[in-house]
């Protein structure tokens, strides 16, 4: 049994999260002030996920997957890679976990699609990653709400 990481999902480090996100915001403001609204919102969204993954650390599968995805975004933008390219293929294991004992296979599959980097994972690992992901998502949403609230005032 995983003693240390099953019973206590690590609480997200709020200052670190804020740090990365605000830094990203600053850079976005600096760099893309002339960009369109949609582009900027997409960039901000990606920055939010990137800062979330950065704050989470490399130990979680979802944070690694998110960072790889962000890398792909960055590289495709910078170097003009074709957008069809999926770097996930490097990391996406083709092993399909056959779990006939699942309550309903579709639910776990939906969850696998939602949580990044959880495609080839057994159920217990998937649940653990989901718990961690939810924690960080919630912290990120709170942070963004605070930022929006304070900025728009």
């Amino acid at each position, binding site marked *: 049994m995983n003693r240390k990481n099953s*019973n206590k999902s690590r609480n997200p480090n709020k200052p670190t999260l804020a*740090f990365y996100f605000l830094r990203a915001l600053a850079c976005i403001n*600096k760099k893309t002030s002339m960009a369109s609204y949609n582009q900027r919102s997409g960039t901000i969204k990606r920055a*939010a996920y990137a800062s979330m993954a950065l704050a989470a650390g490399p130990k979680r599968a979802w944070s690694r997957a998110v*960072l790889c995805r962000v890398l792909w975004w960055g590289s495709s933008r910078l170097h003009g890679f074709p957008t069809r390219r999926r770097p996930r293929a490097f990391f996406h294991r083709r092993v399909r976990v056959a779990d006939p004992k699942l309550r309903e296979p579709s639910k776990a599959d939906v969850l696998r699609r939602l949580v990044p980097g959880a495609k080839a994972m057994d159920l217990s690992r998937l649940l653990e990653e989901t718990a961690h992901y939810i924690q960080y998502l919630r912290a990120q949403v709170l942070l963004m709400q605070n930022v929006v609230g304070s900025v728009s005032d």
Partner: protein
Amino acid sequence: MEPTRSSDAGSGNSGTYTPEIAESIRFEEEIQSLMRENTMHPGLEPPPVGGGGSSFTALLGLPANQAVELLHEPESEESPAVAIASASGGEMWRFRLRDPKALTLPSGCSPTFPSNAALVERAARLSVFATEDSPEAASVPSHSGDRSTKPKAEPADSDSQPICPIPGERPQRPAKRKEADKGNKVKGPAKKTKSAEEGSAKGAEENTSGSGEKLPYVHVRARRGQATDSHSLAERARREKINARMKLLQELVPGCSKISGTALVLDEIINHVQSLQRQVEVLSMRLAAVNPRIDFSGLDSFLSAECGRVTVGDGRCGGGMEQSAWMEATAVNEGRRQQQQIWHVDSVHPHPTPSVWERVDSPHLFINPGTSLFGYDPSNSGKRRRRRR
């Protein structure tokens, strides 16, 4: 006790004589003499004497139930050693025990053992038999030869005892019971520390727990009436893991603790994750709309000139007000009031992961001599523009 017992068995098997083994040999001789007295009992033969090697098996040739009780546990413990030492003897005693005629012996032979109590006491004194110790030894003389009370004494023993750490001992008790008392239902003394939700007593499990007798290294304990084979154990462990994680998730997701049933809980979790992701998107759109108003000006030239570590308020020229404005704007930073941050360009276009992770531990101080730095001192309302470029 157990290591001494096993060591005794080992030493006994190897032929070296220790005081305990000498006493057990005397015990054996007494038993053999007793058995020669009872030659009228069918199916009983003097057990094979293999010196110190098969002392336990010789003892187990005793037809009395007390001896069976006394000797079964240590024998079963030493089953690997004994099996190695004398397999044939072991089988013989097992066969003898399964002999229904042997079961009727206790009632018949208890009066024929005048020194039964003495034997029992000697057995109890022997360190090798001191497993279930006093409760057993106490119960044995009390119901000497009484077959009906034996199964009752057994549950009493098992209840009174603390959880025995002897590996492989538990699964063998039902085997003994099965052999000794076919009529009764097996009470299922196999208790596993991994408590699973399924507690249904199945009759098939008795056989599997009986087959566990042969395995000397069954270290897990099953709930009563549960299978002990490795597959079901692994399955149970896996299920417990999954259920533990589901409980964690239920606590995380609001409103999930009331729901029972994994499918509904999973539905709730999926909805929650989707809603959170949607919220992130909405907020990012709002931020994008709000952002042009915020002006994050940079101090990068100043910092690159400084080209080193920037500590609390050092590298900022009159940036105190901006910092406080920034702090108000964010309203989230608790621990970064006094910090100057050096921003790297790769927040939006990240560098390869290793270099990024280095900064995770120390977000406060950055040492970036060669790279282009810009710190930013954002002003909330855009009134202050410090363009140091």
